[in-house]
């Protein structure tokens, strides 16, 4: 062994101290990398949610114009029978347009058209609803708030410049002046957008609503639940409690794990080829959508169900078998009730996943433009995420806020389901 001199030893100590410092710096750096990664990921989440929430806020409001409408019997009910069908068929659009044109003093054809285009093409619905709800308004003059066009809506909300001729402005000089005048007189204002929550889709941004998609999603998820839950629980029970360990069950297991990872769009192709083309089920219907979604979330439910069943301790089974219960009685009367909270949690999470799924539904034609609210799972309908997709695809500027508004509603539903699942787990979680 070589003898070290004192000076060499000193150099060694200094070098090792430097090395240690470097190693500690590396340690701190590494730690900082990890923290930064988490911060970046959460930062993206924050930006995403903030963008959507900010854009969504204005979608729950809509511009309205106050009109002093003279509900002229000659226009609305020329026969004087107050027959609801005749009342519903009257020319309310013309009535509203004339009222506004007269109020704004538009006389020649060009300005009359400009004035009329301040109103939404859906104002007839506003007036019709008032008349049908209370036919006694006929013959009187009332001040009513009616829906303004999307251009007015966007201008009032400040999304497009108000000055005529400015880049991106939607209003002509006349319209701009009228709007300023009405605003000053308190006859143009932004109110709660009731239509957004009660009506179906529309080509006109100010008339488009979510309700059709909400109902469609509800029907689809009901079909999914009715099919996926019993089948999933039964499969989980069989695989966990009864299945002998053999080739057949191995194949099933591998299959389930793989199905869980198959791209959802492939399930859409399956639905198109089998449910639509072979069985001839109606296109765009929540029934087919629900069937496809059931196949998609079946593996999730089976895997969650098996985990929940596995968590039930064997002593429960032994006790039941020891008291003379049959194998099936043991499962149905003791094991399954104890595993149910876990299974429910897994099912809710699977359903939440299904609610947000849209790619496979595009394949089975759920992207059609559908105005009517569906009345049964066989009617063509949209679902929430597909509605988001359709609106996001629309070139109209006014649909951007609608899209964000629909996303917020979708995220709210998802949040409620997930929180429900967490609460369920917290409440019934048992440590054995």
């Amino acid at each position, binding site marked *: 062994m070589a003898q070290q001199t004192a000076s060499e030893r000193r150099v060694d100590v200094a070098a090792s101290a430097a090395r240690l410092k470097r190693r500690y710096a590396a340690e701190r750096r590494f730690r900082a990398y990890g*923290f930064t*990664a988490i911060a970046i*990921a959460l930062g993206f*989440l924050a930006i995403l949610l903030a963008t959507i929430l900010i854009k969504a806020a204005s979608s729950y409001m809509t511009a309205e114009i106050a009109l002093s409408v003279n509900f002229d019997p000659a226009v609305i009910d020329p026969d004087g029978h107050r027959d609801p069908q005749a009342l519903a068929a009257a020319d309310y659009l013309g009535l509203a347009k004339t009222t506004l044109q007269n109020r704004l003093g538009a006389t020649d054809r060009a300005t009359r058209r400009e004035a009329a285009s301040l109103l939404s093409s859906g104002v007839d619905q506003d007036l019709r609803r008032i008349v049908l709800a209370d036919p006694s308004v006929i013959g009187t003059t009332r001040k009513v708030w009616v829906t303004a066009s999307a251009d007015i809506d966007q201008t009032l909300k400040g999304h497009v410049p108000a000055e005529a001729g400015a880049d991106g402005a939607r209003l002509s000089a006349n319209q701009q002046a009228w709007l300023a005048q009405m605003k000053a007189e308190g006859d143009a204002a932004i109110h709660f957008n009731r239509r957004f929550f009660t009506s179906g889709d529309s080509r006109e941004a100010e008339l488009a609503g979510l309700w059709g998609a909400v109902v469609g999603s509800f029907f689809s998820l009901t079909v999914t639940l009715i099919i996926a839950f019993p089948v999933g629980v039964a499969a989980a029970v069989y695989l966990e409690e009864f299945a002998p360990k053999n080739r057949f069950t191995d194949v099933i297991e591998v299959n389930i794990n793989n199905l869980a990872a198959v*791209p959802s*769009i492939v399930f859409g*192709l399956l639905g198109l080829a089998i449910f639509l083309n072979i069985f001839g089920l109606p296109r765009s219907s929540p029934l087919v959508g629900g069937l496809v979604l059931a196949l998609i979330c*079946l593996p999730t439910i089976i895997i969650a169900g098996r985990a929940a069943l596995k968590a039930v301790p064997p002593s429960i089974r032994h006790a039941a078998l020891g008291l003379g219960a049959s194998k099936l009685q043991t499962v149905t009367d003791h094991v399954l009730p104890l595993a149910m909270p876990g299974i429910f949690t897994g099912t809710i999470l699977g359903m939440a996943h299904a609610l947000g799924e849209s790619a496979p539904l595009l394949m089975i034609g759920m992207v059609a433009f559908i105005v009517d609210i569906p009345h049964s799972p066989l009617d063509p309908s949209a679902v929430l995420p597909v509605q988001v997709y359709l609106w996001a695809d629309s070139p109209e500027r006014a649909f951007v806020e609608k899209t964000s508004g629909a996303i917020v509603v979708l995220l709210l539903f998802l949040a409620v389901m997930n929180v429900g699942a967490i609460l369920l787990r917290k409440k019934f979680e048992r440590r054995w």
Partner: protein
Amino acid sequence: MQITTLTIVLLLLASIGYRLGRGRALTMGRSLHSLPSYHGYYVALWCGVPAVLVLASWLALEPQIIRQFLVDALPDQLRALSPERMSLVINEVRNVARGYATPSSEAVAIGARHYQTLQQTGFAAMSVLCLGLAIAGLAWARSRIAPDLRARNQVEKTVTVFLIACSTVAIFTTIGIVLSLLFEALRFFHSVSLLDFLFGTKWSPQMAMRSDQVGSSGAFGAVPLFAGTLLISGIAMAVAVPLGLLSAIYMSEYANPRFRSVVKPLLEVLAGIPTVVYGFFAVITVAPFIRDLGHLMGIPVAAESAASAGLVMGIMIIPFVSSLSDDVITAVPQSLREGAYGLGATKSEAIKQVVLPAALPGIVGGVLLAVSRAIGETMIVVMAAGLSANLTANPFAAVTTVTVQIVTLLVGDTEFDSPKTLAAFALGLVLFCVTLCLNIFALSIVNKYREKYD
């Protein structure tokens, strides 16, 4: 709906059967083999199951049977049509009969009326058969009730058959996917050769409606699509793997439990957001941002660049990578870490030189699963990536992917026999095979790794 009514009647009959069976068993005295309720279930099953089976097979076969009858009844000039025209006529008849359309000719109107009568007669016959079976089953099963009837064993056998049937649904789904994709893809390969499809570099699936139109021959070379898919998935993985892996390391090795309990669910929120939301985010926020960035740096950026779709897809996959790696890192035995500390390693040295190499196979498996997810992801690319099939490696150019093309080929196109729609199934088959191989490979790595430390 009539079927709902029929189902409710059958359910009612089954519950009556349960009460009758149980009641009869209760009168038999004390020496029953099975509990009275099992006798009830026995009768209810005999009452309900055959009828439901008939109902289900009717629902499955009804369209074919009625179609056959309808074709036989159509006038001769319609029957002489080619199969494709024939299916159009039958669709029209169906729509007219359901009241969705007005008949275009007298023959169709007659056909529609005939279709309605056929449907009604068929349904009536089936209902009678169902109810007859239900009542017969009920009566027969009730007559069989005796003290030594092994009702429990029979009921349990039936339930077990049901359980097995449910667990085979997964297998049938896989078979269904494979068969439907394969069948349509084979029809596609009749008109386009497999080699052209897999190795051709030109993709323009627009087929002309008439043969005299210019540019009528569609080109189905899928290489640009594969390249685009790989490019976007590559960008996504370049974002997701470092971020996901580093956050997993921080969470499992450094973070205290309180930090973990707050941040982990927040990261999971990223995984719970629907992909259509990410797509919208990519379009309205990320794409303009990247375009402006490109302007600043003087790089031309396409409006629908691969970078924006890939970046957003990467964000979506972060929680996937991080939770899988987290599991794997936590599964590395503590003794390995302690050994490293004992030799004087700092925490990060222990992680980099001991824990990560030990966890590597599992992490690779997790990353492969993430890749398969990125390849199959649809909505983000449909909304944020383009339609133009460019063969390029430039992340700022517009590329298209396999999933985007499947969606564009199939949405809004109901005609089912053109190579254009069939091409979607061929692409679907490729997608399915690739993701399946990745999944099987990744799962086998992960499982092997799990067993090693268990």
